[in-house]
């Protein structure tokens, strides 16, 4: 476990919600588990991103705090629509209307980058942080060779000579174990895995300190996915860049990330050490997610998933956004918005832990989903039940 960081800045920066809930951060200083201060390369504070539409706005990212240490691998998981990609774009300053940052700050290398113009950003983009997009087929230019696209990047962000560019391009391709002959290939001549690898190679052209990845493996099959993950991890350990890795597949990230942030309805609901989060998840949503996918090993169990569906962010419910689907919901959950509580070195946004660590609760907290041995065939009537099929 890394050292926790005492955050030097003023009180209140980290207080969420801001209404009637008891103030758990009495001193206003609320440290994020993460790296020590001199190592942090990215500090996100109360970042809010909204999609501004005619009918009002949709709060896609709601007061998110994140710290990222040098060389750290942070996973961000959540379901579609939870704001994880929007958060990434907010950090990378890639939002385009109608999305815009409506509050908070993104501090990268001690510099505020939220609100910088494209011209100002050009000096740090790609050189200090780069982004790997979800679908390599769409992110690569179909009518340009890989070398041509790398040249574009280098010309835009540096004044390298053509020879230098060629040399560097070959280097980065070798880094991701692609034969440099493919520099003259067009994207359609590469397999899905190779396309994604060349995207990563491109992101490493200037050896940035931070690589932001938005589901880079989601278009690949499991075998290619696995080998890409291993490769990303190896490169990261070798070159020492930090990674923010967004994915909807929690199991994918389990063996690779140092810390994990679980997002739900635009907020971080749990943030902590990956191993610990998998071994003892605190938030009912995380518990539900972990119980939602079947395993290929161990006994077969009947799983229920999480009934219901995520809230409409245009009209978020009062209180905890997970309350309507929560198996451990309490009366106050629908009125009080839970703050991010510090429990056992994890941060969790749930009122269950208001009064301290879970030992006190362990006795009366029901298990999140009922677990039973799966019979040879599932009993009739067990399935369709209260799934997301029921109307709200």
């Amino acid at each position, binding site marked *: 476990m890394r050292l926790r960081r005492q955050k030097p800045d003023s009180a209140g920066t980290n207080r969420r919600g801001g209404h009637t809930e008891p103030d758990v951060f009495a001193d206003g200083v609320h440290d994020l588990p993460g790296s020590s201060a001199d190592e942090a390369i990215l500090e996100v504070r109360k970042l809010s991103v909204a999609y501004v539409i005619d009918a009002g706005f949709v709060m896609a990212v709601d007061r998110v705090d994140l710290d990222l240490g040098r060389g750290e691998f942070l996973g961000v998981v959540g379901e579609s629509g939870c704001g994880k990609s929007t958060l990434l774009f907010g950090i990378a300053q890639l939002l385009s209307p109608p999305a815009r940052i409506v509050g908070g700050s993104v501090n990268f290398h001690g510099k505020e980058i939220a609100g910088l113009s494209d011209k100002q950003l050009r000096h740090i983009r790609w050189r200090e942080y780069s982004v790997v997009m979800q679908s390599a087929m769409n992110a690569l230019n179909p009518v340009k060779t890989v070398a041509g696209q790398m040249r574009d990047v280098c010309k835009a962000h540096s004044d390298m000579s053509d020879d230098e560019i060629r040399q560097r391009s070959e280097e980065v391709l070798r880094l991701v174990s692609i034969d440099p002959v493919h520099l003259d290939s067009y994207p359609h001549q590469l397999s899905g895995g190779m396309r994604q690898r060349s995207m990563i190679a491109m992101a490493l052209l200037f050896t940035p300190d931070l690589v932001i990845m938005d589901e880079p493996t989601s278009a690949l099959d499991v075998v290619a996915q696995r080998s890409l993950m*291993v490769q990303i991890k190896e490169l990261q350990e070798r070159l020492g860049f930090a990674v923010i890795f967004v994915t909807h597949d929690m199991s994918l990230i389990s*063996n690779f990330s140092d810390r994990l942030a679980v997002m739900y309805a635009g907020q971080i609901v749990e943030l902590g050490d990956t191993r610990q989060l998998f071994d003892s998840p605190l938030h009912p949503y995380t518990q539900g997610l972990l119980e*939602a996918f079947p395993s290929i090993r161990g006994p077969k169990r009947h799983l229920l998933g999480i009934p219901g569906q995520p809230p409409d962010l245009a009209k978020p419910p009062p209180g905890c956004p997970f309350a309507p689907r929560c198996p451990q919901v309490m009366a106050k959950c629908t009125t009080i918005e839970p703050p991010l509580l510090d429990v056992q070195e994890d941060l969790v946004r749930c009122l269950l832990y208001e009064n301290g660590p879970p030992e006190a609760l362990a006795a009366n907290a029901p298990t999140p989903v009922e677990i039973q041995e799966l019979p040879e065939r599932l009993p009739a009537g067990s399935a369709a039940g209260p799934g997301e099929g029921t109307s709200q």
Partner: protein
Amino acid sequence: MSDPLLRTEGLTRHFRLGGLFGKRTLHAVDDVNLMVGRREIVALVGESGSGKSTIARLLAMVYKPTAGEIYFEDRPLSRLRSRRDQLEYRGNVPMVFQDPYSSLNPAYRVSHGLRRGMKLHRPDLDRHQRVEEIERVMNAVGLVPADIMLRKFPYEMSGGQRQRVGFAQALGYRPKLILADEPVSMLDVSIRIGLLNVMSELREREDVSFLYITHDVASARYIADRVIVMYAGYIVEEGLTEDVLQRPKHPYTQLLLSAVPDPKAIVAVSGSTDASEPPKVVDPKEGCRFQPRCPYAVAECETITPRLRMLGVEHRAACHVAVPDEAQEGGASSSERGNELADPSPSTASPRPV
């Protein structure tokens, strides 16, 4: 095992590349013999490009096979000439598609698709019976209350609900086998299980079989009785789910299983990364198509295409190197299975090249 409902013999589909005079052929599906029994869930597992969706389309009569035959209830599909016969078959074997966001017509309410399908495939029902039947299938897939859900437009529904509509439409035809082509891959993790449970339940209550096509081995294990693993157009391994997953014979199956992320296992991150080269399916030569990636390849793998061999009870793999199960572990099941081996029932004896 149950009676065969649908089986294929030497099913093959090639695509010609490069326009009218193209000389190259892509071997999407080669010599596939598969069988789906009554009330059985069979999972067809493989990576993208392995031919699993092509099989679904062949079975749905979207494509015509290049060679081979499909038998549904022992009647060859190539004999279904009249529109009536074809309609009947399509009603018996409907398909549920991968993408619930594009498989429903956005301009019509949910009820529209259900009504049209039912008019076409169940002409015996009158108006009132149709309404009742629609309500019944909506309830069966968990879309309640049916009257409210039926009035919705697709955009008013979540992905999981839309996919349930897909299943309701298929169910409206009183099908015997539903071809489910990656039905949950576009859905969120927390929703997937609900839909897999719906499939299991439909098998119980509606006596439907499923051919569940997926790349997600864990979900296949969750609902399927048998698993068929495909690689580059060939079936490389098939057998009862637990046999295949716990004692994989084919090196590809082993690779596939080792790649499945498991949060509970602490896996060493280092180690050999598979080159994961896509297999050559355009004008392939004789020989095992997995050979370039295979750690156990021997000389004959390069020249002789391996055929499926019986390596255990109801467990076949197409590999020169794989070794058969030793004597079965004891217990009641082994003697029972032993009988089956000695005297293969006609249903399981679909001809397979040896």
